[in-house]
């Protein structure tokens, strides 16, 4: 009978939870990672955004300057050194041919499906040819794939757009998942490549929505490039994000080598808390509920979308442990008048000490052996900062290090 006792239990399967679990498992700890869903990673992530607002061309220098200016920010809690180590650990997971690299020392720009450019840091190899500028490329979309408009993207990118007719799958439209799976099939890829080639007017590069397969994206890209006779790069689009799912799958494959117990689906309820410590959590897999225990816990349940934070009409709360949540005084102040405002609600979250333990408004530690990681942390605004992946990546690493070093 498998033991229900672990060194570390990680709650949440977004990038922060995955990073935390990997960090502890790599240090030889017995780890359980539980997630009721696949996290925001699979909705949004494509390249790794670290601090897109950073000007200057050196990320490390920029981060240390940022830390100096933002002492409460999750990056300041993690510290420069652990941020660097976290990045290294993340990159170590992606071996050639599908790798993440920083095209420059600082931020670079990648084109998006809306014809904008977005500052980002680590770029998967399927996107590198689009870095900097997509000008003069052919942007190819697929007919009946409604989540990417080649014309719209091309318009903003100073490129030429073409929509490729591939017939309609069973009288319905293509979803990103369907396209990603189809494109792994040689007959489909060949047909697509030939249709793109026919539309080339001397362009040297082709931009395509980020659906170039789930399992072997680098190979898919390479073969497409061979058929088309030009470099091919992926462009991020509306959710779900195929590149994000690739990251998730890569972590899962790593855990599944016996490195950690990976539970996707069950939810965590009714933690047992005694004397300021968590002594176990109930893992609910209806109709079965079992108590799992560990020396330490990482709470990485994300924000509202993933259920880490809950908003009632009066206030914002953390539903699992009932932790104190830093938040604006009233609901009227949560959101700005304009959609494009930086909304105060995005700064809400759990306040932590330098060891990532949750603290109350007096600065007292609420739970000794629980560490908080990822977007649920207070004092950041990942949308405005363009730090959507950097915060979970660094704090997942740092929180797990704190948990296993104590």
């Amino acid at each position: 009978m498998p033991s229900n006792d672990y060194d570390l239990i990680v709650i949440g399967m977004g990038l922060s939870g995955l990073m935390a679990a990997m960090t502890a498992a790599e240090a030889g700890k017995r780890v359980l990672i539980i997630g009721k869903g696949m996290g925001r990673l699979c909705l949004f992530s494509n390249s790794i955004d670290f601090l897109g607002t950073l000007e200057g061309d050196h990320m490390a220098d920029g981060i240390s300057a940022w830390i100096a200016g933002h002492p409460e920010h999750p990056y300041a809690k993690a510290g420069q050194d652990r941020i660097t180590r976290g990045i290294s650990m993340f990159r170590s997971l992606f071996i050639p041919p599908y790798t993440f690299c920083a095209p420059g020392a600082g931020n670079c720009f990648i084109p998006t499906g809306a014809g904008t450019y977005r500052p980002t840091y680590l770029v998967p190899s399927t996107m590198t040819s689009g870095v900097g500028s997509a000008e003069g490329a052919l942007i190819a979309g697929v007919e009946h794939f409604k989540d990417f408009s080649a014309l719209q993207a091309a318009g903003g990118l100073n490129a030429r757009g073409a929509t490729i007719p591939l017939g309609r799958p069973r009288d319905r439209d293509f979803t990103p998942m369907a396209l990603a799976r189809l494109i792994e099939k040689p007959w489909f890829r060949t047909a697509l490549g030939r249709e793109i080639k026919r539309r080339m007017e001397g362009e040297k590069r082709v931009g395509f929505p980020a659906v170039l397969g789930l399992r072997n994206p680098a190979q898919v890209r390479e073969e497409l490039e061979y058929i088309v006779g030009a470099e091919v790069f992926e462009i991020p689009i509306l959710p779900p994000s195929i590149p994000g799912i690739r990251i998730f799958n890569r972590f899962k494959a790593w855990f599944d080598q016996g490195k950690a117990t990976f539970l996707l689906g069950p939810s965590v309820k009714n933690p047992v808390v005694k004397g300021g410590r968590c002594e176990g959590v109930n893992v609910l897999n209806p109709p079965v509920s079992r108590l799992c225990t560990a020396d330490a816990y990482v709470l990485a349940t994300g924000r509202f979308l993933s259920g880490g934070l809950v908003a009632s009409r009066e206030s914002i709360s953390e539903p699992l442990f009932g932790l104190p949540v830093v938040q604006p005084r009233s609901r009227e102040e949560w959101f700005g008048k304009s959609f494009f405002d930086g909304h105060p609600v995005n700064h809400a979250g759990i306040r932590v000490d330098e060891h990532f333990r949750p603290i109350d408004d007096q600065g007292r530690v609420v739970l000794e052996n629980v560490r908080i990681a990822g977007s649920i942390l207070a004092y950041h605004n990942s949308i405005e900062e363009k730090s959507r992946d950097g915060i979970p990546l660094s704090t997942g690493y740092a929180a797990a290090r704190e948990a296993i070093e104590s």
Partner: protein
Amino acid sequence: MEIRTEILIIGGGATGAGIARDLSIRGVPCILVEKGDLASGASGRNQGLLHSGGRYAVSDPHTARECISENRVLRAIAPHLIEETGGLFVSLPEDGLGFQGEFLDGCRSAEIETSVLTPAEALEREPNLTPDLLGAIEVPDGVIDPFGLVLANVRDAEHHGARFFFHTEVFSVGLSRGWLGKVFAKDSVSGEEYSIVPSYVMNATGAWANQFLRLAGIRTSLALSKGSMLITNRRLTRAVINRCRPASDGDIIAPNDTVSILGTTSVGSQDAADFDVTGEEVSQIIAETAKMVPEIAGARFIRAYAGVRPLFRVATETGEESDRGVSRGFALIDHGARNEVSNLITVIGGKLVTYRLMAEKAVDLVCGKIGVATPCSTHLRTLPDLEEEPGPPGLMPHAHGQEYAFRGTVICDCELVSRDQIEKQIGHKKMRAFTDVLHRTRLAKGTCQGGFCAYRLMAMLDEKHAVEGDSREVLEGFLEERWKGIRPILWGTAVKEAELIETIYKDVLNFHTPGVEPGA
């Protein structure tokens, strides 16, 4: 371009469209100009109620009689736009049963059919009602698709020779010796200017009446009242639920196809385009309507919106100057008889359900002046059943697009709007492509309120070269408009939706504050 016409109608809401239909059926040439899309004012921003008149039975017997008589007319001429839901006036413990007697008397004298239900009977009919209710009275309330109604009037009028100019705003008038000789209007899509030479001008601009009258040099004291409404993500009741007490805020729960619309507030306003819903109004509507249907307290809302009612201020019996005390009846102002402008008539106030009657009276008046003796027949002719799929802002149309549900590419996943349905709307000349498509389809009316499908619609318009200006700016404009309706209801699961959509547009796709370039 100069256009000569007998009657110029200004305003493309229910009243203006109704006047155009009535005039054209009587054989009087007319044209209508509207500065936006049709039904973009109060005609498209209401609860979609086909009032029985019960609500006015005690306070305003005259309006109550008009309502019930027009209620019957509309059920005869526009059955395809109406759902005969019935309505209940529910008495709660805090109100007591005292008002029931007055209410029944009022309904009797206005000839509104009623039947008194016991609490058990009411609950059997509407299981979501509070079990604490003391009693309920049934009346013939219903719901109507306001956008479809206006559209049907427009199409019928066009069929009889009327001409319509949408997105065409009056910017100046030529007035000499109290005679409106010319009206100048500009098409905001093509930029073309028209100089219109009418014999008579009908001002049917609703909440914007003051603005037009000022152009004509006339001062008025038209009162405006803002009413805010909330839409739930599913339908809570079968019938229209009213509170059995003197009219007050948060009194009505109107079903509308698959959703319910809760309303309303009544706040004095200065601005005809005052569509902001405050947090206070939201709390008030929820608190009051939840007393009738407790489930509302925990409901998922998808949108808040407001309409501005034009009210014609008359002295109330008590002399009290509250916004609710202002008559919901309508008035015709003959500016000639008042020695202001001899060929101008303003039509003001009224209810959606009495739009046809207002049009009839207005057209009777103008026909008397121009010597046309043909009587009104709009109450005898059925309104056309259009193939177009109407869908006013925030309201469900009567006919849901079920038949399209699984045919071809679905662009709006929440409301199952297909590419074919949208393509039918694109390419109509003289359309503000993006917003007009939203107006005429169910697109963006569901739970995500266009978070996904707005991008897809934009892509379709791009393919057809039907976008005016920069398509990203149009999309940004949509997101900003959408935000107005969503911001007031952001708590619970709606906050998840907000995080999703904000991350898509501002983060992944890196849209920025309009007018500011990234990195600038």
